[in-house]
């Protein structure tokens, strides 16, 4: 591991590994040798070309190779949603997909949604309503919420929808059901819900 000795070191610097291989344990016995594969995709509007160990998840590619440490590794098994990013307009668990499966894709991470001086409305709403405590799940919550509201706008139904033939309304029950793939272990759900309600225009 290469650790920067410069002042103002960021976590992104510390996380760069050399060579960048994603921490797999090598068990003795029958095992294929590590295989490298080239892939190109767009991240936050910028084309990125990578040669990766095939095992590298999209999450690890973003965090450990592109230094975009906003998306978090929580459970690494698709149960918590901390790794949620938006790929080709859809929210997915970036921990449960391989980077090499995304040739030509357009990926948006929390870093691409807004900037500190120009927050995305969902980011601003999370700040306004204090939609977090420790903050670890927040990037995933925000990416998920932004894509979720797009799903609602295009008329996608959910388990909470009364009817599958009428347009689903933006109700509290709909928002809660649609965010169930994002866990907040601090339990900031009520404030997260308030933030999303404001952006969704519920009760205004």
């Amino acid at each position, binding site marked *: 591991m290469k650790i920067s000795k410069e002042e103002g070191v960021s976590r992104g610097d510390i996380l760069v590994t050399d060579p960048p291989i994603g921490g797999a344990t090598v068990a003795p016995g029958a095992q294929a040798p590590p295989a490298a*594969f080239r892939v190109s995709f767009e991240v936050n509007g910028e084309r990125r070309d990578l040669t990766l160990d095939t095992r590298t998840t999209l999450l690890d590619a973003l965090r450990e190779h592109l230094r975009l440490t906003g998306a978090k590794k929580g459970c690494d098994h698709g149960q918590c949603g901390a790794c949620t990013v938006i790929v080709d307009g859809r929210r997915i668990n970036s921990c449960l997909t391989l980077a090499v499966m995304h040739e030509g894709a357009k990926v948006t991470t929390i870093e691409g949604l807004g900037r500190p001086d120009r927050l995305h409305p969902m980011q601003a709403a999370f700040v306004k309503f204090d939609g977090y405590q420790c903050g670890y799940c927040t990037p995933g919550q925000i990416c*998920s919420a932004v894509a979720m509201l797009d799903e609602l706008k295009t008329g*996608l139904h959910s*388990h909470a929808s009364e009817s599958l033939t009428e347009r689903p309304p933006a109700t509290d029950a709909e928002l*809660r059901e649609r965010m169930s793939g994002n866990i907040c272990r601090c339990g900031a759900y009520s404030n997260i819900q308030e933030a999303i309600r404001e952006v969704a225009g519920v009760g205004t």
Partner: protein
Amino acid sequence: MRAFSYERATSPVAAAAKAAATPGARFIAGGTNLLDLMKLEIETPTHLIDVNGLGFDRIEKTDDGGLRIGALVRNTDLAAHERVRRDYGLLGRALLAGASGQLRNKATTAGNLLQRTRCPYFYDTQQPCNKRAPGSGCSAIGGVSRQLAVLGSSPSCIATHPSDMAVAMRALDAVVETVDAKGAARAIPIADFHRAPGDTPHLETVLNPGELVTAVTLPKPVGGKQVYRKVRDRASYAFALVSVGAIVQEDGSGRVALGGVAHKPWRIEAAETELPRGAKPVIDRMLAGAEPTHDNAFKVTLAERTLAGVLAEARA
């Protein structure tokens, strides 16, 4: 995760041929279940064939008025399809009851049918499991078995099939279409698709090595009131303890399939003649011969009560 080589498939038959000829090869599509299992080294493929580019992502009308659903159609898109919402509401409801928004955006139709059990002992690589390590024994029998099967199981395995979608597919008489390494197509009724565990619980479907699912077809719509009710330990994003998928016609006839009780979506056509007489005679017949464990005996009662609720809703 074990190392593996990777390729992007360019034709279905070539992909099937490569998979059949390469020991340790697996297809990958959505990857939401396979990668989870690869991280735990429960699945250890040495070669992955990415089938996402094969174009099986369309939903089309069939000549007899039914629906052909491409194997790669994502759960989100299938649930959102106009004809599914209008004519196959049971399927739409079952899909929306499963997983999370993020997972449904990735998970495919074929992958949903092929997903593996969530038995805790299958997942715990420190424990014996005949499904994960054939011949090692079953830790679930005599273990914590709240989630597990009450019938159709064997002394080797009491795992359940976790899918919601498959329960609806079973009630709708879906047919699984495949292609093999020689280009031969096959149509497998969903009732015959999943194998009973017997003494080979690691073999879960009737698919041959390399055989690739290309589509799932539904016969023309059967109408009726279609209800899917899922009972689980939390309100959302959890696997079913018991689920009931039912189609109830105005004359009281209908169809019922159960999830969460067996190694496959459970339907006994002969039991459906009891539907006009209510939930109890139907469940008595469907679950005849059930051998629940101490932990999951509640599922028999729960299935009956859930069906009673579904029938009340359908007849309201």
